């Protein structure tokens, strides 16, 4: 079918001559938001429990932060099918690592391995923001975050997913004390960095998520916080607004 009609006008140039192709879209967005913070001797990884497509809530409780053993926490937030596939592959390979080497996987090695899992699909990426949390070889809290194709970095804190842009500036200010001066220095010295205690971190996480729930439609229903300390992994749950 030709669109070059007998009637020619100025408006024709705006009309496409190629037929519109309907193509299968292999991706979707399942909403939610996640957040990892490293403390001095602990690390947390938190996520809301709402699972969505479009304007619908699929489930009010679908966990997306997992404890995979070896005191490692992982989440891959974005397109849920890719996230699940990535976590499944990681769990499987971790099992094989134990069989082959009879030792725990360090978080440093886990991070490098996840880079390879992600980059392995460089040209058909896992549409996820991946964050892992745990303790490093010295027992200090560690958080690593990844972009969809595997670029990663160790950080003190990182928010991922839909409301990352709402939460991250809050974290910069409250965890890394960005834009805060030492009140007694008369504006000459920056507020000194210090490790936050676990209960302070949990308070920040709860406030970050209840605030994100207020202003982001894909965030809500419930908050699940996984906490790693030298004593192991613990889970806390707090309800969020359901509207």
């Amino acid at each position: 079918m030709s669109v070059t009609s007998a009637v020619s006008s100025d408006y024709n140039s705006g009309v496409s001559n190629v037929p519109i192709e309907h193509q299968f879209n292999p991706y979707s967005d399942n909403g939610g938001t996640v957040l990892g913070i490293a403390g001095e001797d602990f690390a947390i990884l938190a996520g809301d429990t709402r699972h969505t497509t479009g304007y619908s809530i699929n489930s009010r409780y679908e966990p997306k932060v997992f404890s995979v053993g070896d005191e490692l926490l992982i989440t891959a937030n974005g397109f849920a099918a890719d996230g699940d596939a990535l976590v499944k592959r990681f769990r499987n390979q971790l099992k094989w690592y134990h069989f082959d080497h009879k030792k725990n996987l360090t978080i440093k090695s886990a991070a490098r391995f996840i880079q390879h899992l992600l980059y392995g699909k460089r040209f058909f990426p896992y549409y996820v923001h991946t964050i892992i949390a745990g303790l490093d070889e010295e027992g200090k809290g560690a958080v690593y975050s990844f972009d969809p194709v595997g670029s990663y970095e160790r950080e003190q804190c990182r928010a991922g997913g839909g409301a990352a842009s709402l939460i991250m500036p809050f974290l910069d200010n409250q965890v890394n004390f960005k834009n805060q001066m030492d009140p007694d220095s008369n504006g000459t010295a920056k507020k000194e960095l210090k490790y936050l205690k676990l209960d302070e971190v949990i308070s920040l996480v709860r406030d970050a998520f209840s605030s994100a729930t207020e202003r982001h439609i894909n965030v809500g229903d419930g908050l699940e916080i996984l906490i790693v300390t030298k004593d192991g992994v613990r889970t806390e749950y707090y309800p969020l607004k359901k509207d």
Partner: protein
Amino acid sequence: MNHGPYDWGRPSDDTYGAYNHQIAAANNSQFPKMNTQQPIVTGTSVIAVKYQDGIVLAADNLGSYGSLARFSDIERLLPVGDSTIVGISGDISDLQQIERILDDLQVQDSYDMEKPNLKPEHVHEYLSRVFYNRRSKMDPLWNSTIVAGLSSTNELVLKYADLLGVTYSSPAIATGFGAHLAIPLLRRKVETEEDASKLTEEEAVELVRNCMKVLFYRDARSIDKYSLAVISQSRKKIDIHKGLRCEDMKWEFAKHIRGYGAPQL
């Protein structure tokens, strides 16, 4: 008469010229490989809800061909093994392919095990991976499914899986239009697992039947004839009731509605 499949339904070649066989023999041709690009004959919503002793599922019997109500006897609640029901919406030819895949799985299971061992958690894992692998080949099975049943530990399993490989679990699940029309009604009664544990079987069946009625009122690709499955934990049994009809519908008030605005003469 040429009986070659490529020439079925085509007028003689003198009218339109020879058929370009490369279109169908898609590989290694000037055309890209063709996969399912859209569903053709389709089934609408499947809905499911947990109650204190099990799960109730329902799906109507219509097979739509675009806006044509083409088939009215399609069965979309498939029993798999003795403790699983898979409810399927979307493309019907892909439904039949899934039926075949799951049948193969049952046969395989019966070879390996002395007694049936295929449980809903296995069916869901298998099915969702079939979906994810097919989507990753850009050749999807165009369906949304609900897997329900009694697990190996006699726990309730109610999970969703679709053409993208997306999965989730909830005490009330619906596919397609049901996600918009039935879910709000189901969640009014069953928002949490705790709510489900208070709902009786009679209440659950009534709730699901009301949802099917609302779907018939408002989903233009639905029909008032449907199947309803009741999975019972205590009876360790699944009953599928077929050919149910929407009942107690309200149409009486419609005769009072005249025109669409200013009074019509």
